């Protein structure tokens, strides 16, 4: 059976079970859009900007375990998509981006809407392909999906020139694929796992630190089982929230630059650290030399060998799929007669409780002005902790991470690695389309939301009833906070003047807008908004412009060199 490249593209998406594609048409992808039109298995969501297409596919993927798919045209279509692709790359999100390209005979001639898509995206994709012959298209797309979701996941771009999408060739979709140069390890080394178990059992001040890898490999269950079995304290990174239930007493909260005192101190002072699907990045452990100044044994489980001993030297590296390794670790642990020394652990917990009793997330609430933390606490209460929460980037992101207690994985959707403002709303669209009946909230700021606010239009077109919680402090809050702390209160270009009337704006897009100024109105407004199940509600909360995120470990400092709210 002969099919055109465009038909093959759509057939491959169907074969992969893709239900939603987020995209924007243009000249180079017209044949592909024509084929989309002729079928109804793959639903297309027309965004308003290609960056949003990729973020939506990203949110879709993060909230499920599926590969997100975006479709963009050549030239500006691809360059607009780059921020989204880089966001997915930094957070290892499985994604396939299909881009149109000018016809093969035009490549290199500076044709209209030509850009070297493979070149432009190379540093921020797991892999990419330029398909020069329709004969290679099916195999390439199969490879793309396989690469995107296996091993350490990531975005894969497939660039399809216009003539290739119109070229007729025989079609058969390969059932399986193997790539000789790509063989990700799944099982960890048994000897290393035994060594790890021994270290854990003999630990005096143990600590478990779980990152985004726990979420990506669906390992929350074995991680929780392991931590409970051992009776150890556990922390999650910003990317790992929900990997261990936040309401559990063994959970110390998030660690890192804005982590709790107890999480950061336990991380610093522990003698055995079990790192699971995490990468010791600068926002998590701060200054490496300071972190290394305390001797401790580190066990590191990660699917990517390059993540091990990259910033911090590791004693027991275990390369493998996090869920598989944790399951094997549990088996060894169950068969071991030895148990952790309860008395020694109790002493360690006493120390941890002393740190915890400092209540580092306490903030001074007010009757006069809305405290952003209070909004998140109320959001948590009203959604009973069951919402999918996406966020943009800045102070509101940190407050959402600190005060919304995620008990389940894949509920907290944020751009952790790249820190992409403008991520929240399109990501929320992707989440809502993946979970039509779920409650989805986008916590954002008046700065971030304006970076992809045009997506309110997409939300209208597809009836996406997300709740936008804008913590509007009239400042680029995190920038303002750094300027206050480190730049002598010189608020250089961090004040946002001439903000739009967000209520009117929401209404102009056909949504419901709410303006909330008084702390006493916060709860009622949230209740009212979440009752409007079928409507997008944009909630503009006028929050305290001077509020800062605490605790804070200043950039380049050590985890114990923390600024607490009570210090000021």
């Amino acid at each position, binding site marked *: 059976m002969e099919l055109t490249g465009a038909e093959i593209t759509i057939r491959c998406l169907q074969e992969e079970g893709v239900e939603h594609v987020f995209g924007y048409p243009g000249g180079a992808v017209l044949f592909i859009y024509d084929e989309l039109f002729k079928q109804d298995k793959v639903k297309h969501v027309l965004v308003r900007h290609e960056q949003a297409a990729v973020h939506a596919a990203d949110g879709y993927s993060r909230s499920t375990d599926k590969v997100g798919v975006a479709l963009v045209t050549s030239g500006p279509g691809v360059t607009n998509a780059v921020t989204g692709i880089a966001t997915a790359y930094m957070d290892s999100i499985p994604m396939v981006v299909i881009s149109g390209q000018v016809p093969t005979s035009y490549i290199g001639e500076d044709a209209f809407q030509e850009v070297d898509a*493979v*070149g432009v995206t*190379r*540093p921020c994709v*797991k*892999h990419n392909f*330029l398909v020069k012959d329709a004969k290679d298209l099916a195999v390439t797309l199969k490879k793309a999906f396989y*690469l995107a979701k296996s091993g350490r996941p990531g975005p894969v771009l497939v660039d399809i020139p216009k003539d290739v999408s119109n070229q007729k060739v025989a079609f058969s979709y390969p059932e399986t694929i193997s*790539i*000789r*140069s*790509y063989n990700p390890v799944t099982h960890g080394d048994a000897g290393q796992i035994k060594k790890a178990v021994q270290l854990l059992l003999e630990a005096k001040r143990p600590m478990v630190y779980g990152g985004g890898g726990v979420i990506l490999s669906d390992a929350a269950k074995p991680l929780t089982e392991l931590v409970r079995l051992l009776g150890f304290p556990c922390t999650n990174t910003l990317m790992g929230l929900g990997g261990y239930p936040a309401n559990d007493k063994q959970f110390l909260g998030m660690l890192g630059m804005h982590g709790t005192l107890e999480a950061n101190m336990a991380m610093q002072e522990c003698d055995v650290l079990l790192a699971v699907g995490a990468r010791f990045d600068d926002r998590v452990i701060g200054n490496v030399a300071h972190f290394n100044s305390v001797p401790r044994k580190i066990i590191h489980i990660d699917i*990517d*060998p*390059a993540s091990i*001993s*990259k910033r911090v*030297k590791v004693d027991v590296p275990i390369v493998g799929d996090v869920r598989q390794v944790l399951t094997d670790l549990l088996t060894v642990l169950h068969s071991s007669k030895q148990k952790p020394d309860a008395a020694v652990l109790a002493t360690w917990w006493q120390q941890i409780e002393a740190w915890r009793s400092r209540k580092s997330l306490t903030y001074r609430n007010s009757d006069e002005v809305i405290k952003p933390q209070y909004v998140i606490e109320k959001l948590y209460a009203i959604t009973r902790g069951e919402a999918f929460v996406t966020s943009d980037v800045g102070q509101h992101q940190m407050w959402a991470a600190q005060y919304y207690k995620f008990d389940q994985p894949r509920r907290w959707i944020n751009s952790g690695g790249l820190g992409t403002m403008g991520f929240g709303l399109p990501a929320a669209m992707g989440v809502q389309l993946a979970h039509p009946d779920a409650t989805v909230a986008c916590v954002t700021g008046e700065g971030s939301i304006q970076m992809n606010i045009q997506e309110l239009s997409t939300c209208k077109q597809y009836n996406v009833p997300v709740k936008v919680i804008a913590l509007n402090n009239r400042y680029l809050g995190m920038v303002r906070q750094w300027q206050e702390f480190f730049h002598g209160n010189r608020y250089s270009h961090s004040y946002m003047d001439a903000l739009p009337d967000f209520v009117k704006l929401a209404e102009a897009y056909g949504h419901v807008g709410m303006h909330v100024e008084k702390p006493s109105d916060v709860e009622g407004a949230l209740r009212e908004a979440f009752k409007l199940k079928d409507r997008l509600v944009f909630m503009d909360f006028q929050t305290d412009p001077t509020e800062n995120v605490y605790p804070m470990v200043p950039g380049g400092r050590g985890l114990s060199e923390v600024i607490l709210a009570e210090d000021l």
Partner: protein
Amino acid sequence: MRHIISLLMENEAGALSRVAGLFSARGYNIESLTVAPTEDPTLSRMTIVTRGSDEVIEQINKQLNKLVDVVAVMDLSDGGHLERELMLVKVRAMGQNREELKRMTDIFRGRIIDVSAQTYTLELTGTGSKLDSFLQAIDHDLILETVRTGASGIGRGDRILKL
């Protein structure tokens, strides 16, 4: 420390730029890089000479392995290995210099591969330091042009990098 890393990669468009891009994006140093197809036309063999601390070299090896187009990586410096570089040198060869340059070329086991009334073109192979020595041994003012390939490396004896 100086390391010589050998790799086999898919002989595909763009594979070289993935490797080169990795080095520049992560701030790794490249002293030289050579690449050409092997007896198996689907594979290219690359030799990279780089410098870095043990930690950096470990990362380079891991990051190279992570590239989907890279089939196999071997740090030749981890064991016995040979390395050779080819150099072509065009020199001004007139009068008494003609004889002197011929003699030096013989001493370094090079060959004269092109002769004109005023010039010789010399071909030398060896380690980088041998080629450096040759350039230092002859009169600097006579050198018109030098072309060096960068090092190619191979393991000694049973150290084989093959699919």
